[in-house]
């Protein structure tokens, strides 16, 4: 399959008063046309910033893409001038944002907000665009779309608004859709509907998409491949099936342990990942997950592991972990049984308990790096 997107060594940073936040710190991945990819990690790990970087939507200042290349359809997005980038946005790459409540403009009608892109990229006139808008709304399952097309966003429910966002993303038949936590803000019952819709439409339109989420459960049935991100870096890459069957990296284990599963024994407890995400201004010098890792060794603190193929796994399964490399101590570990050094777990728990609540909140609030322009 020809490559649609190739991201190489992407570095996106935010220059704040407290220092440089390395939100995305050397991310590389590829995506074929029509392929679907899940980008998974805790909030603040750089997934959203990665997506925004692809469309060059990082607020500048304080943000800046300092290094790397984003090859889309054989062209480097980072080398384009502003007009060329605008020609791609909404036309070739579209984005669905997290919160449908705030992502639609409250003072413009739905029809205006969808038609806008159609008129711009597909050069439709007003009435053509309007007709197409109604079709799109029907396609995403808005009942009596003809009547509702002139409504304002506040007249729609959250789920309906997200459908509108999807219609908007699909409007110009993009080759790639970036869906950033598209269901996080919605009711659980609506979540499944929206995901099904997205999946079905992407298949129908043969659109590649990147689904960004903190919830491994969401991507399970949705994407062909999964990349796990932590602290601005990709820490594990695998096919979806392979990742769930044979996860290699302790952070991925942590994520998996924290999803409730119906097919498992009641007594297997949900285990949260203790500790806080790393400070991206002064990240740990070794492995970024080391401070929270229950399997850590001295080498983890001293040197950063590379993203490497794992010995006893599928060919394209890679992980960034000393323990999973040739001769590493985790190669034979069964993550379901072995939950690591419980003393370390206790240590971290105690330390966290001693932090004043304010500091924990502050640290959590500071880590997600895209701060609104001050």
């Amino acid at each position, binding site marked *: 399959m020809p490559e649609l997107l190739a991201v190489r060594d992407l570095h996106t940073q935010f220059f704040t008063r407290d220092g440089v936040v390395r939100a995305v710190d050397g991310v590389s991945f590829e995506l074929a046309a029509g392929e679907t990819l899940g980008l998974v990690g805790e909030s603040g790990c750089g997934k959203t910033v990665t997506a925004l970087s692809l*469309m060059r*939507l990082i607020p500048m200042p304080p943000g800046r893409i300092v290094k790397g290349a984003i090859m889309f359809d054989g062209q480097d997005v980072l080398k384009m001038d502003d007009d060329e980038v*605008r*020609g*791609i*946005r*909404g*036309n070739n790459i*579209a*984005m669905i*944002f997290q*919160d449908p409540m*705030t*992502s*639609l*403009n*409250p*003072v*413009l009608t739905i029809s205006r907000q969808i038609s*806008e*892109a159609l008129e*711009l*990229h597909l050069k439709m006139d007003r009435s053509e665009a309007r007709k197409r808008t109604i079709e799109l709304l029907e396609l995403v399952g808005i009942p009596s779309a003809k009547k509702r097309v002139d409504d*304002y966003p*506040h007249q729609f429910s959250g789920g309906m608004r997200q459908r509108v*966002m999807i219609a*908007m993303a699909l409007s110009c038949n993009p080759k790639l859709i970036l869906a950033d936590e598209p269901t996080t803000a919605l009711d659980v019952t609506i979540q499944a509907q929206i995901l099904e819709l997205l999946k079905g439409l992407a298949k129908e339109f043969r659109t590649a998409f990147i689904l960004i989420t903190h919830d491994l459960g969401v991507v399970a049935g949705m994407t062909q491949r999964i990349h796990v991100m932590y602290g601005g870096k990709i820490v594990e890459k695998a096919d979806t099936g392979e990742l769930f069957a044979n996860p290699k990296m302790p952070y991925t284990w942590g994520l998996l342990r924290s999803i409730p599963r119906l097919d498992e024994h009641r007594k297997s407890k949900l285990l949260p990942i203790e500790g806080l995400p790393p400070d991206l201004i002064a990240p740990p010098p070794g492995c970024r997950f080391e401070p929270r890792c229950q399997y850590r060794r001295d080498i983890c603190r001293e040197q950063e592991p590379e993203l490497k193929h794992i010995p006893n796994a599928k060919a394209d399964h890679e992980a960034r972990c000393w323990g999973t490399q040739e001769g590493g101590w985790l190669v034979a570990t069964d993550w379901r049984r072995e939950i690591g050094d419980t003393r370390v777990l206790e240590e971290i728990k105690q330390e966290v308990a001693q932090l004043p609540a304010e500091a924990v909140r502050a640290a959590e609030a500071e880590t997600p790096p895209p701060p*609104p*322009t001050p």
Partner: protein
Amino acid sequence: MLKYTIRRLLLLIPTLFFVALIVFSLAHAAPGSPFDAKSNENKPLPQATIERLNHLYGIDKPVWEQFALYLSNAIRFDFGSSFVRDRPVIEIIGQGFPYSAQLGVQALLVALMFSLPLGVISALRQNSIVDYASLLFATVGTTIPSFVIGIFAIYIFGVTLHLLPFVGWSTPSHWILPTAILSLGAMAFLTRITRASMLEAIRQDYVRTARSKGLGEQVVIVAHVMKNAMIPVVTIVGPATAGLITGSIIIEGLFSIPGIGRLFLTSIIQRDYPLIMGTYMLYAVLIAVANLVVDLTYGIVDPRIRFDR
């Protein structure tokens, strides 16, 4: 929306009643007769004349009776006659109103014309020199009282440079200083609000959505940001207009403009009750109507506002 307008107008009636009641009782709480003042001037009026005048104008009756009489006349748009000028209040006000209206409308237009672009530009060029200059202007303009700025302006442009006249309203060149000074406060206030609400709107999620569609920066700013940023600005135009209306009293006093503001000032000093009541009620109605108009506009710019409650 029509129903809402009618309801708001009906609500004006009890409000006006209270305004009338309070102003009326205040006016009558003052000791002595309004004709005392008249008699102080050169030759004192004989006591008998004052009593006859009091009787003629009904001031010797109990206050509540006078109030009832005033109200019943007011309903028929008869607001009595001025004690001092011996002419119907309506006529006097009708003569002064055009000056005040012209001053107020000019000032409002000037304020809007300068404040909106200034606020938008300083928000788009945040922390630039233009931004700092307009912030400084906004702070000074909202802080230093208009009569003080007026004094400085009269001194500079009138007394020292002899560029502009500063007494009366006779020629267009007489309009410049009063209009400029009156508009200044509202202008500064609106600049501040415009800048703040532009900055607020510009960082909303929907702006990112608009950019993600590939829209040009100009379209994003005009169609998406400004349309939202104008909502808080419109709500502020109401209080700003009210400020202009009361501010015009000070300006009319300072520049000796024969409008209702100066009528109000002289009437309270001369204790000319009918004229006080008339001018004050007019101001109350004007401010209420200005607020109503702004609330209705608010419903037009913000589709989330509905009046059918």
